[in-house]
C-alpha cells in the first residue's frame, strides 16, 4: 500500500510539472504584454517598458519560468502582475468561495444521484428506469449556461422565490440561500454520472451470488438492499464522484460568471485574459493538484472498501 501510494504521488508530481510546462508555453503565444494589460491600451510606450522591467516580464521566458519554479518549490506562489501583490491570499479566498459552491452541489447531488440509481436499478427495464436514466443522461450534456438561464428565468424572474445572484447572502443560512440557484446547474450535470454509476453498481450487486444467496436465505429484501447492494454499488460511485471533482473545481467559471461569484473560475478567466502568468500557473496547478489528490483518495477508499481488488485494479 505504501509503495503504491509513493508511486502515485511521484507520478502526480510529474504530471503537475508537465501541466505547468503546458500552461507556461501556451501562455507565451498570447498577444499583448502584462504591463500593457495593467496600464491600458492607451499608455505611453515608455511606461509600458518601465513596468515590464519592474514586473520582470521583459526577461527571457525561460528565466521567468525558472524564477517561478524556484518559488513554487519553496511554497511561494509569487506575485501577481495584475494585482502587484502576493498570489497566495487572493487565490486562497477564491478557492474557498469555489469550494463552498462545490460542497453545496455535492451535498445535494450525491444522495439524490445514489437514490436515483438504486431506484432505477430496482425497477430495471421499466418505465421508471427509463425516465430516470434518460433524464440523468440528458441533464449531463446541458451546458450550465443553458440550465442557468432557464433557472434564472423561472425561479428568479417568474416565481421570484430565489435570489439570482450568488453574492449578497450573509451568515451560513444566507450564503446557502444565495448559492442554491447557482448549485443546481452543477447538480444537474453531476446527477447523470452518479445515477448511472449507482444504477450499474446496484444491478451488478443484485445479480451477484451473495445477493441471491441472501435472498434465498430468506433475508428481507430491504435488508439485502441496504446491507449488501448499497455498499457495493457505492464503490464505482465513489470513483465517478472523484473524477468529477476536477470538473467541479475547474469548470465553475460559467456558473461563477452567470451568478457573479468570485471563485477560482473567474480568477483564472481574468488571469488568462490579463496575461497574469504567475496567477494563471498557480491557479491551474492548485486545481490540478486538487484533482489528483481527490482521485488518489478515491482510489485508496475504493481499495479499502473492497479488499478483493486492492491495488491491482487501481492502475
Amino acid at each position, binding site marked *: 500500500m505504501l509503495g503504491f501510494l509513493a508511486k502515485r504521488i511521484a507520478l502526480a508530481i510529474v504530471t503537475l510539472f*508537465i501541466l505547468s510546462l503546458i500552461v507556461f508555453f501556451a501562455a507565451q*503565444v498570447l498577444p499583448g504584454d502584462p504591463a500593457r494589460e495593467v496600464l491600458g491600451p492607451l499608455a505611453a510606450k515608455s511606461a509600458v517598458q518601465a513596468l515590464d522591467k519592474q514586473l520582470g516580464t521583459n526577461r527571457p521566458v525561460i528565466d521567468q519560468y525558472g524564477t517561478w519554479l524556484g518559488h513554487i518549490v519553496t511554497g511561494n506562489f509569487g506575485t501577481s502582475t495584475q494585482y502587484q501583490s502576493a498570489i497566495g491570499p487572493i487565490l486562497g479566498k477564491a478557492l474557498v468561495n469555489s469550494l463552498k459552491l462545490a460542497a453545496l452541489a455535492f451535498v445535494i447531488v450525491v444522495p439524490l444521484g445514489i437514490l436515483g440509481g438504486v431506484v432505477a436499478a430496482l425497477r430495471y427495464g421499466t418505465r421508471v428506469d427509463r425516465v430516470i436514466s434518460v433524464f440523468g443522461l440528458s441533464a449531463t450534456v*446541458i451546458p450550465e*449556461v*443553458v440550465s442557468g438561464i432557464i433557472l*434564472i428565468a423561472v425561479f428568479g424572474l417568474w416565481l421570484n422565490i430565489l435570489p439570482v445572484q450568488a453574492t449578497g447572502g450573509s451568515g451560513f443560512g444566507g450564503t446557502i440561500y444565495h448559492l442554491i440557484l447557482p448549485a443546481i446547474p452543477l447538480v444537474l450535470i453531476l446527477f447523470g454520472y452518479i445515477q448511472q454509476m449507482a444504477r450499474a453498481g446496484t444491478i451488478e450487486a443484485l445479480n451477484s451470488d451473495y445477493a441471491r444467496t441472501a435472498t434465498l436465505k430468506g433475508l428481507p429484501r430491504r435488508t439485502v438492499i441496504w446491507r449488501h447492494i448499497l455498499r457495493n454499488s457505492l464503490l464505482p460511485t465513489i470513483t465517478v464522484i472523484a473524477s468529477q471533482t*476536477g470538473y467541479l473545481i475547474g469548470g465553475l467559471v460559467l456558473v461563477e460568471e452567470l451568478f457573479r461569484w468570485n471563485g477560482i473560475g473567474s480568477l483564472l478567466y481574468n488571469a488568462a*485574459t490579463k496575461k497574469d502568468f504567475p496567477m494563471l500557473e498557480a491557479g*491551474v496547478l492548485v486545481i490540478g493538484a486538487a484533482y489528483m489528490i481527490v482521485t488518489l483518495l478515491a482510489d485508496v477508499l475504493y481499495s479499502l472498501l473492497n479488499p478483493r481488488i486492492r491495488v491491482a485494479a487501481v492502475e
Partner: protein
Amino acid sequence: MSISSVPVESSAALGAAQGAPDLRREFLRSLVRQPAFMVGSAIILFWIISAIFGSLFAGNPYAQNLLSINKGPSGAHWFGTDQLGRDMFARVIVGSRDVLIIAPLATLLGTVCGTILGLFMGYLRGLFDDVVGRIVEAFLALPLVVTGILGVIALGGSNLTLIIVIGIVFTPLIARTVRAAVLGEQDLDYVAAARLRGESSLYIMFAEILPNVLAPIMVEFTVRVGYAVFTIVTLSFLGFGLQPPSPNWGADISTNYTLITTGYWWESLFDALAIATLVIGINMFATSVESALDAS
C-alpha cells in the same frame, strides 16, 4: 469539464461483434425499436433542416429594426426581438447552422487524433505510453476554460479556432478510451498471428487492431458530438468564437442574458431551449446507438 468520464467500458468489448451482415441488420432493428432513437433522430433532423433551410421559413436573422427593439413575443415576432430589433425566432432557427458545422468536425478531429495517439500508446506501451500518458493526464487536469481561452486568444475567434480547440480538448479523452480498448485486443490471437507473419507495427495497428476497436470509437464519437455542442456554447458564451452578426446560440445568450433581470427573458431563453433540445437529441441518439450495439 464534465466530458472526462462518460462510461464507455460497456462498449469496449463490442469490437468483435461487428462485421457480419446479420449482426448489422440486428443492430439496425434494435435501433429503430427504441423510442429514444426515433425522438433523438427527429430532433437532430429538425435542426439540420433549420440549419440548411431556416432562413426560408423563419425569415432574415440579420434584419435590424432600431424602432422595434426589445419587444416581447407577439404574432409578428414569435420569440420577440433583440437589442437591435432583430427577429429572435429567425436567429434561434438559423443559429443552429454554425453549431452543426463545428460540432461534428471538431469531434472528428479529436477522434482521429485521439485514435492515432491511443493506438500508439496501447500498442507500443513501454516508455512511449508512460511519457505520453503523463502528458494526456496533465491535459485532463487542465480546466476546459483555460485550454479554450488560451487557444482562442492565441488563434483569434473563428469557426476554425473552435474546431481546433475542441479537437485538442477531446484528443486526450479519446486517446484514453482507445488505449484501453487496444490493451484489451493486444493478447488476442489475431494480433499474435499478425506479428508472427512479420507484419509491420503500423500495419498491425491500423489494419488489424483498428477495425476491431471501431465500435467503441464510434460510440465515443456520437457521445462526444453532444459535448462538442456543450463546449461551443460554453466558449461562445465566454466571448470566444463566432463573429457577429451571425446568429449564434451561445454568443446571443452571452449578449442578452444580462437583460433577463430587466425582464427581457425572450432574448436568451429561447436560445437556451434550442441548445437543450439539440444536446438532448444527440444524447438520445448516442445512447440508443450504444445500447443497440450492446444488444446485437
